[in-house]
């Protein structure tokens, strides 16, 4: 599978950014609290102290909420990864069974799989070390066994089941 700069990389970037932010936040808070304690020992004037106590509480709460949010993001990412793995496994099961149902030969299976992955005739031919004419003939046989009109319908055969909604019917 080629690199996919999609939601998952975005999510990973988000956790990294949140983590760095959390570290900086903690640094700021610790230094501030240290300073407050220093101030307290020198001059514990009440108004000043109350104000600083509020700021300190806000900073600490910020860290706790930040940590919690980060945990949620990390867990969400993991759940997505897992769902994707399950879906991937299930899809490859479905494809396997369907290929068997269509009685594809081993060579046709290979070609059909590569075609599903989006490779064109020239690429498939190069990968399999076969002539382009051979691949084209194999694809034609595959389409006829599957009873589809061509590549687009062939790919859609598997995607269709994954899409929950039906085709919207135009309402008068």
């Amino acid at each position, binding site marked *: 599978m080629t690199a996919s700069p999609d939601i998952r990389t975005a999510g990973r970037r988000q956790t990294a950014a949140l983590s*760095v932010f*959390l*570290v900086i936040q903690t640094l700021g808070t610790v*230094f501030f609290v*240290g300073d407050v304690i220093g101030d307290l020992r020198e001059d514990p004037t009440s108004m000043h102290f109350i104000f600083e106590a509020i700021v300190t509480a806000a900073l600490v709460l910020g860290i706790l909420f930040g*940590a919690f949010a980060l945990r949620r993001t990390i867990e969400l990412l993991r759940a997505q990864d897992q769902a994707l793995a399950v879906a991937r496994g299930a899809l490859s099961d479905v494809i396997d069974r369907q290929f068997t149902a269509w009685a594809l030969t081993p060579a046709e299976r290979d070609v059909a799989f590569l075609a599903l992955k989006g490779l064109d005739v020239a690429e498939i031919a190069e990968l399999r070390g076969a002539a382009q004419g051979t691949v084209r003939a194999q694809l034609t046989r595959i389409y006829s066994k599957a009873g589809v009109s061509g590549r687009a319908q062939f790919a859609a055969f598997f995607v269709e089941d994954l899409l929950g909604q039906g085709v919207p019917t135009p309402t008068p």
Partner: protein
Amino acid sequence: MSTPQTLDADPSITPPRLWDPVVRLTHWGIAVSVLFNAALDEGGSLTHVSLGWLVMALLLLRLVWGVLGPTEARFSAFPPNPLAALRHLRDLAGGHPRDYPSHNPAGALMVYAFWAMLALVTVTGLIMTSGATPMQVADDKAAVASGDWSALIKESEAEDDAGLRHLAEETHEVAANLLLFLAALHVAGVALESRAMRRSLLAPMLLGSRRK
């Protein structure tokens, strides 16, 4: 956690392929700061005190993360258990260490030892500087440099806790050396385990394995 000894290869128990960013940031931040403070700067210098505060902040964050973080970063995932640690070392000596969902029991003990030493070093460091933040240290140093020696007087005026400060100094020294010893042990343990397990324990702490 009572470790189920009979359960051998539970497929659901897999060590983390990649530690989360907070664990990694705190780990390397503390490692670099400790090494730098031990070898490259002078005790009491502005850099030394600043890095000490940095370590304190990172340690605190890691402890918060031990409660709020994802499963394998939480304390509950690696409770201190000396018996399990010994068992793990025996497995390791036999060449068949098991997988654990977080730190292995021996590694967990190491983690707690690290945290205890880090806390000790930081607290004694704070006592030695009487809790001065890096900003205050910088101010004092600037004052002394400009010829105003009152900062020095303020520091030595508290004679009554000189004993405590001396004790803190000794402890700081010993704990820091112990910390370096633990670090060496830790690196050796990781190397040994990586070899026995035939997988790098270092990669999950860096960027994770590149294979997808």
